[in-house]
């Protein structure tokens, strides 16, 4: 089989060139169809229960995607509440309202909110908070005093410290946020109020993120290609030779990306890294072939014979290393995170593709190189200082590893133990805003706004009447009709009853008018029964209106107070705050009346008054129109998963102490919560993928070496490396976040390569020499050089990620480079040490 492939390659080089060129061009033609996806929500599949519920809540409570514009004034003694600043806010608001794609009705700004207040004794007043911008500083301050009395606005629309105010701009389609935010920025640039303006909000962050992703793909990946090309050129001192691995890498990257995009997958932060992952991995096999070829080729030798020998020799280890590497990536498909699955699947595929191209293309390419080029390479390679320097260092490493074998094994065991301990200290935490560097304008805006306001991170605690309680009225109605069967003789009533039962989602309120019509036309003797039924249904209706019941509202008030006192949340908002505010202003405006009315009718009537304002729709962000469901909107100053966990633990503890009524269900929603969920799923999923990758690779090793002990040996360096790296993360306290989680499984597949090459070569050398020391000596010449070169190629290949504008890329860059370097080192030190102590292993 492998002979056939090699012969095909050597005999039909031109066909192979054409095939590779046409396939690459054909498949990569789909790349322009690229669709960028920057929505962190997509870390969960679209049918994931928490995500589905989150979106249902978003829809029910009309929680649109918002661009947040913050204006800060730290100079004026009245803060932002001065004539000039407020005029600017008013002007900006008017301009923003005129932008297409903005949901005008829900836009929140001092210019668009409503105020309720006292207007003399016994009089209440509803008016726009700032119908006109103020003309005197006193008027400006008066606005501040009015907002101060609106708890839903303080800390949210206006900073407690007076220095800032915000404009919340809801938009219809978040794909439009780039255009809208550019428009807003233009209007901001025209203001001359001297205030500092910031713009943030998820849609803006996502857009910026998408842009930075393109930058990464457009700069880091080509840069990695250039680095790798330079390295290979330097390793082999041949420009022409270095072109071969580059061609394989380019073909692999372009085809994989073409296939990914052509299959209709969006490019998410994970898949944007496919190119930079494949670039170094794709050249690894070529480096092995060229390394060994350069070693074996002597002037005058038959190139085709040498290359056939080299490839025949390397075929099995290369096949195995490619499969193990792809297994590492394929194992990512076991995580429940779709972007990670797609990333794993396509990098895995790319690695296999790279192997295939290496086997058919590289031999063909080398065989077509002229003898002069090969001899020149040969001369330069063996005549250089640095080549022998690497040899000298490696030789010393081999000597050291065998001479100090026992103490080295003790040290490795010790490091392993300390690392395991470190792993138990790992802090699992992530926050997508931190994916931007700390000096990025998004982070700067985030920080500024969270300093002045109560928090820009949202979580929603939802409460709803359980379905059983919602349907109870149907039973009550049936029971009533059962004991008043004469009603059924009335055709109008019978019809009404039938339609009521038919309508699946009929609510009491919807069927009452019909019953009243029945009453209007009914004969006198049925009227008392119909009146009682009406009364019964009205009573049931009131009981369904959970969020107008004073006991329940007071329960929520208690929960909100406890959250506020916990210090974990910046602020919480609910319909309770609104009811209390309206009640206070309807009474006398005094603080003692900032309470929930005693009776349900009082609450309902206060809410009816709120609905008589300019913005009745604001109520439906807090409760549903049937009042059976509602939210407590929590504003957090940090989007860290750990902080969200603390809030949730606090709520759980409160509810354990103050049990919820049986009829009420509680559930979480909101972006901060969703982030926590996918982070948790990622951690759990990574454990699965790491374990399965470990098991699969181990089995493959046992099969490859036909030996259980060699199987263990092959897994040893990577186990030490991965444990060490994660132990280090635990010890230095770096958060275990998305990029770090993803890397565990895939590095396993990559770092086992070194051990495979090392053990395979050591075993065959031992068979030839039957001498341990001769084997080790030979190992630390060409085989160790090839391993070291590959480690350097991969490590250096990932360093352009350090220049990336987004933190996860940098983390991946540092992390992968370190893992590759450490695992090559561990392979070259730990394996000879073990073999020295247990010499008999090699003889098996």
């Amino acid at each position: 089989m492998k002979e056939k492939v090699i012969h095909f390659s050597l005999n039909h080089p031109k066909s192979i060139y054409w095939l590779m060129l046409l396939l690459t061009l054909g498949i990569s033609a789909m790349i322009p169809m690229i669709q960028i996806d920057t929505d962190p929500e997509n870390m969960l599949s679209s049918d994931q229960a928490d995500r589905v519920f989150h979106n249902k809540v978003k829809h029910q409570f009309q929680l649109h995607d918002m661009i947040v514009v913050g204006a800060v004034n730290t100079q004026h003694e009245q803060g932002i509440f001065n004539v000039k600043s407020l005029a600017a806010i008013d002007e900006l608001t008017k301009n923003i309202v005129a932008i297409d794609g903005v949901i005008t009705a829900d836009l929140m700004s001092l210019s668009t909110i409503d105020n309720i207040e006292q207007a003399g004794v016994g009089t209440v007043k509803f008016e726009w908070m700032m119908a006109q911008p103020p003309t005197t500083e006193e008027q400006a301050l008066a606005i501040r005093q009015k907002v101060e009395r609106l708890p839903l606005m303080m800390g949210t629309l206006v900073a407690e410290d007076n220095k800032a105010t915000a404009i919340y701009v809801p938009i219809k389609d978040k794909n439009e946020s780039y255009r809208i935010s550019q428009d807003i920025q233009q209007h901001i640039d025209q203001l001359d109020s001297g205030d500092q303006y910031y713009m943030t909000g998820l849609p803006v962050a996502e857009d910026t993120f998408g842009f930075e992703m393109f930058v990464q793909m457009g700069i880091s990946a080509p840069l990695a290609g250039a680095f790798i090309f330079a390295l290979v050129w330097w390793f082999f001192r041949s420009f022409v030779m270095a072109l071969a691995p580059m061609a394989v890498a380019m073909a692999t990257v372009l085809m994989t990306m073409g296939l990914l995009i052509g299959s209709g997958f969006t490019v998410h932060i994970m898949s944007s890294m496919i190119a930079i992952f494949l670039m170094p991995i794709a050249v690894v096999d070529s480096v092995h072939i060229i390394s060994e070829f350069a070693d074996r080729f002597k002037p005058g030798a038959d190139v085709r014979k040498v290359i056939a020998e080299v490839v025949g020799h390397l075929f099995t280890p290369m096949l195995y290393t490619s499969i193990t590497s792809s297994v590492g990536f394929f194992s990512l498909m076991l995580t429940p995170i779709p972007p990670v699955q797609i990333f794993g699947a396509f990098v895995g595929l790319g690695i296999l593709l790279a192997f295939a191209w290496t086997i058919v293309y590289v031999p063909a390419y080398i065989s077509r190189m002229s003898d002069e080029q090969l001899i020149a390479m040969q001369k330069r390679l063996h005549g250089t200082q640095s080549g022998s320097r690497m040899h000298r260092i490696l030789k010393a490493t081999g000597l050291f590893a065998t001479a100090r074998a026992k103490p080295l094994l003790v040290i490795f065991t010790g490091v392993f133990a300390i690392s395991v301990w470190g792993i138990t200290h790992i802090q699992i935490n992530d926050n997508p805003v931190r994916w931007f560097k700390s000096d990025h304008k998004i982070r700067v805006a985030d920080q500024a706004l969270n300093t002045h306001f109560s928090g820009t991170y949202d979580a929603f605690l939802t409460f709803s009447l359980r379905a059983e309680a919602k349907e109870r009225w149907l039973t009550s109605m049936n029971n009533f009709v059962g004991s008043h069967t004469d009603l059924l003789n009335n055709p109008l009533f019978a019809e009404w009853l039938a339609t009521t039962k038919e309508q699946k989602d009929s609510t009491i309120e919807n069927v009452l008018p019909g019953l009243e019509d029945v009453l209007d036309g009914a004969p006198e003797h049925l009227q008392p029964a119909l009146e009682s039924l009406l009364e019964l249904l009205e009573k049931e209706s009131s009981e369904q209106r959970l969020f107008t019941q004073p006991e329940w509202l007071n329960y929520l008030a208690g929960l909100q107070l406890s959250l506020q006192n916990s210090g974990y949340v910046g602020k919480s908002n609910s319909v309770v705050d609104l009811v209390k505010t309206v009640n206070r202003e309807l009474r006398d405006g005094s603080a003692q009346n900032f309470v929930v009315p005693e009776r349900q009718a009082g609450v309902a009537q206060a809410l009816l008054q709120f609905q008589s304002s300019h913005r009745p729709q604001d109520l439906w962000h807090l409760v549903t129109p049937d009042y059976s469901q509602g939210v407590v909107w929590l504003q957090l100053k940090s989007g860290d998963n750990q902080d969200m966990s603390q809030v949730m633990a606090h709520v759980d503890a409160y509810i354990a102490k103050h049990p919820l009524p049986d009829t009420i269900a509680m559930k979480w929603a909101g972006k901060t919560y969703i982030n926590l969920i996918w982070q948790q799923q990622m951690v759990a999923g990574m454990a699965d993928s790491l374990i399965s990758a470990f098991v699969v690779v181990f089995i493959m090793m046992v099969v490859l070496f036909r030996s259980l002990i060699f199987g263990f040996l092959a897994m040893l360096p990577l186990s030490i490396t991965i444990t060490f790296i994660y132990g280090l993360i635990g010890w230095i306290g770096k958060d275990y976040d998305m990029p770090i989680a993803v890397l565990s499984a895939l590095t396993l597949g990559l770092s086992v390569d070194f051990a495979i090459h090392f053990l395979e070569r050591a075993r065959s050398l031992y068979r030839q020499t039957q001498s341990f020391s001769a084997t080790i000596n030979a190992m630390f010449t060409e085989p160790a050089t090839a391993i070291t070169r590959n480690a350097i190629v991969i490590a250096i290949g990932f360093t352009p990620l350090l220049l990336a504008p987004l933190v996860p890329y940098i983390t991946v860059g540092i992390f992968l480079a370190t893992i590759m370097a450490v695992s090559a080192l561990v392979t070259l030190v730990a394996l000879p040490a073990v073999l020295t102590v247990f010499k008999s292993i090699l003889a098996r």
Partner: protein
Amino acid sequence: MLKRFFDGQKWLLCLLLVQSIAHAELTVEQIIEAANAASYYPGDDARAEARMKIVDAQGRKQMRQFMMLRQDVEEQGAQNFMVVFSRPADVKGTVLLVNKHIDKDDDRWLYLPGLDLVKRIAAGDKRTSFVGSHFFYEDVSGRLPSYDHHQLTGNDEQHYILRSEPKADQQVAFAHYVSKINKQTMLPDEVVYFNDKGKAYRKVEIVQTKNIDGFNTVTAAKVSDLISGAYTQIQFRHIKYNLEIPSTIFSERSLRNPPAKWLKR
């Protein structure tokens, strides 16, 4: 009372007279006056039970039911309104009283039985929501024709088409509105409001008209939010004109004890 009754008759006579003249000869002012009269001033007083269905963009419904009493103090002039809620059950007994004036701000009172509270509502913007519906207070009590500049822009078989722009001192969300006044009933069959960008965003339309006690009367109407797709339907039933409701009941004192006699169907 008697005098007012005759005033009303006289007005009606005028109206009939006007209607018999060739329509094209009506001036804008005449059309506006006739439409205002037909919409807000039929009879000397009136009573109707209203049922309102408020439907949001997601199709979720809210109901309101209330009895409405109206009394004209002077033709095309001051009026009294009393709105007494009966449903939802938890707002039952809530009363809104309006003394509408032409030359000064209206007086508005509120009685909230659940809070045991009588409250005066300060004069101000009348373009706030009427109890959470898509109607404004102004739609219920009538926007004064003098607030806007009106222009007759067209005619079709059944309608006069008017374009109205708010006068400079008016703080309103619309840039202009276009009304289609029915030539037979002189009722505005359709009014569409446009924003600064010339986009239609709000529509008020008459769904059903009936002749009751000789008056062309709106029995069903609808307001639509053309941007979100939400709307409010209102239906008037048990309409009666010229009940001779005493003006004393339109006073702050009767808020706590609504006049049961006049509120019965």
